[in-house]
């Protein structure tokens, strides 16, 4: 049997943490892109578009992420897609992130006074240009704190992808734990790694919140 020293455990966990970081970044970027599309639907003038976006958001916020991952993992192959754990992980987290981000940004858009839209119209800007030049930049600026806050939530959520078999931090820690029988050390270290990833972002969120409150 191979002996694991403390440093072997720590090194292996840190190597696995790369996948956690990568998955978080990809899901956040993907979620932002899809999220803008959902946001546009959510604030659209067309009733059915608004409704659909509302249901989309409600569906993702009203069901466990674990179920969403399972449904993708087992459901997509039925539609004829070959799918592996990482595809389901990226797709699931991206869709979930898009719903949450769209809802956060909607709050930003709706907190802007109507005059901002009117001013845009009076300058002769059409709808898309109003959104791109006036509304969205302000909405993103207002909601920066909750957006970063959601990133923290997303990093923690990547832990769930271990359950469908994606080799990230938690799955690797389970394997190491099975080999070393040192659960206290292993899961303690895993918690520490997540903390180191998340805490700076949480601090940054607090700073942003204070800055908005002072304004």
């Amino acid at each position: 049997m191979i002996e694991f020293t403390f440093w072997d455990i720590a090194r292996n966990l840190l190597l696995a943490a790369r996948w956690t970081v990568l998955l978080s970044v990809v899901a956040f970027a993907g979620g932002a892109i899809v999220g803008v599309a959902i946001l546009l639907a959510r604030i659209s003038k067309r009733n059915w578009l608004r409704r659909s976006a509302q249901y989309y958001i409600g569906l993702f916020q009203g069901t466990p992420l674990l179920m969403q991952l399972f449904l993708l993992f087992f459901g997509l192959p039925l539609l004829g897609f070959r799918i592996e754990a990482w595809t389901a992980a990226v797709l699931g987290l991206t869709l979930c992130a898009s719903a949450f981000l769209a809802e956060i940004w909607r709050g930003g858009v709706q907190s802007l006074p109507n005059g901002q839209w009117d001013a845009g119209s009076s300058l002769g800007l059409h709808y898309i240009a109003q959104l791109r030049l006036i509304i969205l930049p302000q909405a993103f600026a207002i909601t920066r704190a909750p957006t970063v806050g959601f990133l923290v939530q997303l990093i923690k959520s990547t832990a769930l992808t271990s359950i469908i078999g994606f080799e990230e931090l938690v799955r690797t820690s389970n394997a190491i734990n099975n080999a070393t029988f040192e659960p206290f050390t292993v899961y303690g270290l895993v918690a520490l790694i997540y903390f180191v990833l998340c805490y700076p972002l949480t601090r940054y969120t607090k700073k942003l919140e204070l800055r908005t409150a002072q304004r």
Partner: protein
Amino acid sequence: MGYALDFGWLNDALGMIASGAVMTVFLIVVTSVAGTLLSIFGAIGRRSRHAILRKLVAGYVELIRNTPFLVQLFFIFFGLPRLGIRLDPVTAAILAMTLNMAAYSTEIVGAGLDAVPKGQTEAAKALGLRPRTIFIKIVLPQALKVIFPALTSQIVIMMLESAVVSQIAVRELTYEADMLQARTFRAFETYFVITLVYLGLSIALRRLLYAAGRRSIAGGMA
């Protein structure tokens, strides 16, 4: 498409799904009550005169809020036996969920306490009420009224998060789903049905809490 959805297994599975749902509801009821009570003490500690207590509570809140629930659960269930603390799955799940819930709602309750105007405490003092009476009868009810919507959201989030405790073999909804799909080989259909059950539970829980809040908190919700 060569695959036909089949829900024929559903009739025989209703009992399992129901017992799983009962377990999930049990977990969330216990956790909500224990977690909220604990968070009231947390919020008081956070505002204590003693710096050590303030730091301790703040550290606890940050630790829980910056690590995944799954890791907290594994640490409690697999890690603590190393220290001689051996818990059965249900106890470990309740402990993990309560500690998690308490950290999040400490912030929420704290915000509620800060929102109660100082004049309320001063007026009560002028009437000669004891500090404990002031807190329980005057400040806390007003704070709870302000934070009720936020607390409701937190309870619903916790309910959805509880799907994870299936990983330590607590026989709740997700665990029963895992068992069902292993028996029927109808993974997609199984998880689809269970997802709908969760959706129904979260909608029902939110409605129920709002209705209860409107009735029991004087003057309705803010």
